[in-house]
């Protein structure tokens, strides 16, 4: 791998590795820093907010209440001063006598009326708190006025007429239909020399002045205002400081309604302009008006709002700084980790020379050093291991070759051995058959021994040859159609005499589900089954031997042999199929045989793509089962499909 491609690969792996962790250490650290920086500010803010808010409201309420009290006093003073202003108008004896004459006579002279009106006008012009002075008689008819348009009007229907005859009176603001405005009237009875009431001197208060009193030094900021509201239809007695609100409209709000209901207090509500306000209110019984002082919540809590804003800015700034610090810190921690990760990956991908260049004198540096040390040891070990593996491979190859040569040698040798042996057996048989002349009993016995042992030797050599052939890979397996039933018949015929001789029952069972035709090597199957049957008869002295052909699951079929013989001890089951092994060394002598049969059978089963297994119980019998792949001839298959 060239340096360039390696670099590209590394880049690819690092860049592809990063987005795999959305909660990477880096973002986790940044988030933690931000959280830690914001939490204290936020919690302090939350804790303080309520207290701060309550304090602010308390402060505003206190302020409003003191304004209400101030205004109440100011109104009382204004009213008292103005009541006193009526007194000097008729203080002069001449004026007083003239007025009494004007009010008492049924047909007063116009000159008198004009003169008195002039006097009233002169007096009125000295001040601004009254817009009109007027005199009316006991019938309520206005006899003289600073406003000539009022002369001749009758005030009997006004609310102040009746009480004005009883003594000094201040009439609460009321709506005058004629002037289409609110009026506030102060009256003083006019007495004749006998002290009898002959009429009333009245002054129409200038409500603008009252409005001035209300707005004077209100100290209520931009949105705060104080105003008076009449009990009559909730009219505003003093104007709103905001435009678009008329004096002759009725307005509602919690503050107005509570004040007019005679209550004194403070509350938060939406005012007549539908603005959220904190308001203080009280009822002024002398004027029969409600006094309300209000300030919009936004302004009242402007300081709180500013504090919250500052806190938010501070918290945000802290969060940004913390995020920055967190990012740098995370980078310092994660960069060497990333590098270490890359080096680890390179190492794992086979670059055993890969080493970290981390030299920091901290935990990370230690980790890097530890990694390098480990990588060095690992490299050493791996080099050694590789050498061992090479050796082992070579040894295995040599062993395999030796084994093959051994098998070949065995195969050749068996063949070479069989030829002379067959000659021995043949001549022994000729001699035994008496073809060379009669032989004595003694010689016959000796010949029989030669013949028998030669045959045994031949069998052994045959088996060896078979085994060697299989191991040398010289066996070709046929794939031809055959009939399992045919094999069964052959085997039955072969074994029947043996069974009879040993007095054993021999049963052959064929699974009806098994197809009548199969593909395979009939000869080998027969050989394998025959081996198993020979063993079964050999190790069984009573009872029965059963040969079964069964169809099994997963495209296999089986040939099994069950006996009621001596059985196999459990410890022997694991090596029973090995070459030259019988269950115990003694059994070879008792039962005869080379001990190669089962090994050959297993080899046969395996070269046919199957295997062999055994189950056995000592003293009760054994079952050997060869399982083989079930292949149906093409024609069968077609037939079956049709």
């Amino acid at each position: 791998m060239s340096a360039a491609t390696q670099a590209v690969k590394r880049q690819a792996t690092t860049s592809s590795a990063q987005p795999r962790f959305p909660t990477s250490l880096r973002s986790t650290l940044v988030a933690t820093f931000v959280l830690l920086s914001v939490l204290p500010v936020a919690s302090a803010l939350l804790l303080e907010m309520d207290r701060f808010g309550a304090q602010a409201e308390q402060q505003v309420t206190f302020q409003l209440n003191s304004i209400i009290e101030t205004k109440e006093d100011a109104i009382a003073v204004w009213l008292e001063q103005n009541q006193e202003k009526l007194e000097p108008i008729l203080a002069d004896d001449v004026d007083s006598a003239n007025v009494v004459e004007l009010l008492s006579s049924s047909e007063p002279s116009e000159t008198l009326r004009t003169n008195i009106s002039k006097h009233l006008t002169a007096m009125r012009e000295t001040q601004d708190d009254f817009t009109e002075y007027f005199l009316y008689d006991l019938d309520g008819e206005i006899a003289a006025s600073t406003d000539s348009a009022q002369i001749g009007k009758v005030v009997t229907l006004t609310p102040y007429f009746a009480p004005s005859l009883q003594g000094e009176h201040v009439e609460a603001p009321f709506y005058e239909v004629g002037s289409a405005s609110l009026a506030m009237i102060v009256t003083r009875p006019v007495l004749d020399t006998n002290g009898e009431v002959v009429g009333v001197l009245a002054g129409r208060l200038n409500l603008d002045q009252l409005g001035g009193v209300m707005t004077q030094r209100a100290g209520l900021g931009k949105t705060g205002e104080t105003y008076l509201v009449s009990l009559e239809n909730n009219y505003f007695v003093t104007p709103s400081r905001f435009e678009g609100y008329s004096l002759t409209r009725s307005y509602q709000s919690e503050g107005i309604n509570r004040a007019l209901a005679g209550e004194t207090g403070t509350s938060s509500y939406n005012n007549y302009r539908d603005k959220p306000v904190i308001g203080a209110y009280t009822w002024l019984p002398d004027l029969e008006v409600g006094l309300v002082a209000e300030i919009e919540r936004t302004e009242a809590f402007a300081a709180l709002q500013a504090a919250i804003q500052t806190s938010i800015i501070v918290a945000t700034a802290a969060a940004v700084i913390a995020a920055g610090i967190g990012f740098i810190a995370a980078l310092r921690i994660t960069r060497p980790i990333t590098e270490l990760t890359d080096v680890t990956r390179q190492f794992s991908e086979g670059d055993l020379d890969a080493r970290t260049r981390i030299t920091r004198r901290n935990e990370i540096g230690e980790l890097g050093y530890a990694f390098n040390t480990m990588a060095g040891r690992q490299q050493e070990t791996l080099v050694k291991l590789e050498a061992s593996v090479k050796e082992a491979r070579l040894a295995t190859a040599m062993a395999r070759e030796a084994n093959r040569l051994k098998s070949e040698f065995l195969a050749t040798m068996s063949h070479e051995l069989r030829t002379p042996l067959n000659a021995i057996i043949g001549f022994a048989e000729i001699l035994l058959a008496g073809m060379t002349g009669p032989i004595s009993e003694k010689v016959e016995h000796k010949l029989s021994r030669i013949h028998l042992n030669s045959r045994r030797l031949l069998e052994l050599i045959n088996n060896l040859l078979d085994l060697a052939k299989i191991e040398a890979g010289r066996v070709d397996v046929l794939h031809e159609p055959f009939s399992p039933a045919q094999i069964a018949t052959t085997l039955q015929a072969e074994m029947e005499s043996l069974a009879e001789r040993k007095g054993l029952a021999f049963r052959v069972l064929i699974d009806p589900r098994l197809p009548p035709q199969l593909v395979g090597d009939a000869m080998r199957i027969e050989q394998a089954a025959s081996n198993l049957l020979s063993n079964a008869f050999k190790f069984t002295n009573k009872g029965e031997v059963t040969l079964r052909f069964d169809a099994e699951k997963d495209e296999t079929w089986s040939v099994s042999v069950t006996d009621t013989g001596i059985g196999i001890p459990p410890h022997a089951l694991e090596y029973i199929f090995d070459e030259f092994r019988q269950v115990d060394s003694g059994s070879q002598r008792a039962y005869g045989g080379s001990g190669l049969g089962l090994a050959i059978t297993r080899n046969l089963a395996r070269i046919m793509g199957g295997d062999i297994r055994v189950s056995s119980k000592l003293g009760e019998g054994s079952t050997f089962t060869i399982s083989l792949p079930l292949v149906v001839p093409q024609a069968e298959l077609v037939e079956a499909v049709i």
Partner: protein
Amino acid sequence: MNPKHKFLAIALVAATILLVTGCGGTESSEEPAPPPDEVSMQFSWINTIEFAGFYLAEAEGYYADENLNVDLLDGGFDDDGNYIDPIDVVLSGEADFGDQDAGILLEARADGAPLVAIASIYQRHPLAFISLAERNIERPEDLAGNTVDVSDNSLVVYNALLSSQDIDPDSVNSQIRTDFTIDSLVNGDIDVIDAWVTNEVVELGLGGYDINVILASDYGVEVYPNVIFTTEDMVENHPDVVERFLQATLRGTQMAIDDPENAAAETLTRNADLDIEKETESMFQALPLLNPAGSQPGMMSASSWETTQDIMLEQDLLDAPLDLDQAYTLEFLNDIYEQG
């Protein structure tokens, strides 16, 4: 980096399930209410803001609360162009209640009509004599030498005003008003017209005209313009129906006073020809008439009735003083306001 070592991810999900169990309405075990009393009210004029209290009493279910089924009859002119006089309608039995000018009601009583006033919609007469401000007609005596258009049914108050101010009727060029618009005044054809402060005055105000207003009631000329009346038979034999009707009507009136905009809107539903802006302004102008300082909605005073009778006698509209206690009663108003 081991993905297993994920950083803490705490999600607290609090699911609050509010089980709202509705409770079934409890069946009243009381006896079923008797069927509502059927009554009717004949207005003296077409549907306008003047009768807003009645409309609201109906719309808000105040009549139903009093177990009344009230038929509110529009007034004005019938198909033949004749004025529908509530006095005739009530006398004929076609309506149980009506409203009419107090002076006209006294005339009817003098003719033997068994009718009794039980309350007054307006407590001040809204009648005024108005002129453009530039004409400087500020007081009744300024009318002399000017042309004054006076409606037929304003003549009693007009004559009373002249009389009370010792103005020679011949010094004024008075004529019966036939043009009920404000055009002749604005054009300068006529110097003075009679007007209600709740009607023409509002119209001129909205038109931006500066005007002088001579309000008749300012000069002690006091006639209730629209007293609610019924028959003597109703007062004697069905006082509870009368009181319930008045109670609900006054509740409606109070509601109109409390929320003039809504009162105007409700009036518009009865008469689509009206203009919402003008009716709203009219309603505000009507507030001090409906509920003057120191009074309560519907209230009447003995002095006003006496004044009215004096005016009628002076103008020979009545031959002799009547027993006013028979002509009106405060029995129902006092009952209602004493109950609170």
